[in-house]
């Protein structure tokens, strides 16, 4: 199954809707098709408010990753829409984490991993060997399943990456620390102990600190690998609300095993499946479409909890 930029939403292709909108305005409802269009527009109201400009942030083209000779996933062609939350779901071992690690070139840390295909971040070819990965990773942040704050103070956890990226002014750093901690709802909890070790925070607080740390660098996209699965239900729902609040400002790609969560937060859903020896993208569409009228029989089985 090949999916490309146009295929975000089925049947309501977003670009098309956008054009339709323009057309409606132009035609001042004189077109006989208008009623039909209007119907579609109401159906996709939510998507439209979320996507003032429905553009593609990241586009992968026939992307495959091999660990030595063994493929982790193959031929994934997928668009990740700007300002939307795209959820990546699928059974264990189908290559979701591996897919994320290509998008910010974290797979470079594994010398035995080989990638084929192409990833475009805007006009930038992410897989270009001459690419400045440091600049790339500043644009594409990542959050992991296990919260991984550095063994430094809370303040330093955010300040140190900023310094490394050339922001040296103490006042500027202080204000970024404060605003990002406020953005993740941690400021009131930690403002009196910024100098304490980040390792003394609870798991949920640590995860929010990690998100704050990534946000401080003002990335365009955030990759999240099961960010809630190591957290208790309350922390998990706090982090989930936080992710929802990132919509529009950031492009979020989130791996989750929690289908209810995917349903709650995702604008788009991609289902990976282990097929003929490697992970494949078998279904992609708006959250509504994937959950309500899945195209693939495996999807239907998976979301109904029959398999996987």
């Amino acid at each position, binding site marked *: 199954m090949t999916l490309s930029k146009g295929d975000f939403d089925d049947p309501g292709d977003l670009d098309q809707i956008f054009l339709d909108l323009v057309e409606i305005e132009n035609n001042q409802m004189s077109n006989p098709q208008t009623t039909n269009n209007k119907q579609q527009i109401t159906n996709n109201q939510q998507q439209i408010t979320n996507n003032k400009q429905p553009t593609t942030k990241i586009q992968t083209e026939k992307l495959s990753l091999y660990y030595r000779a063994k493929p982790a996933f193959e031929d994934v062609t997928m668009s990740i829409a700007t300002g939307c939350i795209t959820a990546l779901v699928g059974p264990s071992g189908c290559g979701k984490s591996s897919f994320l690690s290509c998008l910010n070139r974290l797979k470079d840390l594994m010398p035995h991993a080989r990638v084929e295909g192409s990833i475009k971040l805007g006009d930038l070819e992410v897989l270009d060997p001459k690419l400045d990965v440091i*600049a790339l990773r500043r644009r594409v942040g990542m959050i*992991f399943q296990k919260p991984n704050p*550095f*063994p430094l103070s809370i303040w330093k956890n955010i300040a*140190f990456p900023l310094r490394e990226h050339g922001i040296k002014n103490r006042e500027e750093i202080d204000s970024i620390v404060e605003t990002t901690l406020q953005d993740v709802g941690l400021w009131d909890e930690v403002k009196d102990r910024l100098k304490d070790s980040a390792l003394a925070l609870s798991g949920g607080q640590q995860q929010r600190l990690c998100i704050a740390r990534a946000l401080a660098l003002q990335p365009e996209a955030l990759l999240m690998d099961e960010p809630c699965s190591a957290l208790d239900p309350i922390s998990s729902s706090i982090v989930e609300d936080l992710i929802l609040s990132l919509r529009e400002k950031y492009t979020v790609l989130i791996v989750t095993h929690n289908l209810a969560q995917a349903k709650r937060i995702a604008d788009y859903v991609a289902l990976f499946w282990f097929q003929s020896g490697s992970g494949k993208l078998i279904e992609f569409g708006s959250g509504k479409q994937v959950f309500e009228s899945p195209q693939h029989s495996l999807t239907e089985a998976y979301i109904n909890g029959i398999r996987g």
Partner: protein
Amino acid sequence: MTLWKLKISSLFNRLQSQADLLLISILRILATITGAIVLFIVFFLILEAIPVLQDEGIVPFFTDSSWNPAEGLYNLTPMLLGTLFVTLGSVLIATPLGILSAVFCQYYAPAKIAYFYRRLIELLAGIPSVVYGFWGLVVLVPLINSINPPGTSLLAGIIILTIMILPTIALIADASFAKIPEEYLIGAASLGLSQWGTIVGVVFPAAKSGLFTGVILETGRAIGETMAVLMVCGNVVQIPRSIFDPMRALTANIALEMAYALGNHRSALFVSGLGLMGMIIILVVASEIINEQ
């Protein structure tokens, strides 16, 4: 039948717990012996040091005009300072070198080179100190002599000790870097931090206590080293005015004079032994405190 099995198994259990008891008592005895040996040595040092301490008190060891036990002059300061200088110098050089070599091994070297480098460092750790001393005497001392005579000097001692304690700090730093959780490194990489930025900002703080332990152990080794220092430092009892001056370390002093020392002279050597022991105890306590934090 089942009863029989049950009996066997309970017998077996009893035997096993008896074996455990036996093992525990053996371990207890061994631990007691080890502790007793340390206590016995300290006790012996104090016992042997008492005569001169009773006669002279502690002050003359710092205020006498020179070290001349035959005439009742017991100034140990030149040797104390000698030990201090040679230890400080070598620790100051070996610490950054050892830590950087571990950084190289862990984060920069290709796997094969890192492997050979580690084996090389381990080999370095295994060379007997008299061999180092011999090498120093034949190679290092003539070299320094050609720059600034006499050659046997504080500098020679510092260089030899640096080479000798380098493996200690390098291996410990390497081990503590290897223990750093991978998620720190992956997290740092995903934030777009440079390799060196990650090392300074994340790896060093995370490995801090291991590195401190390494410094303390290498310092202990430097203080206690006798043979090589004795062979290359020239052993003139004086406070060295430059790194090219000969000097005598406390350990060398004991080794040189023990064979013929009598009476208060002999007792004074035990006082310097006690001093060395005191330094090591302070180091061990310091390392305990650091490890607890």
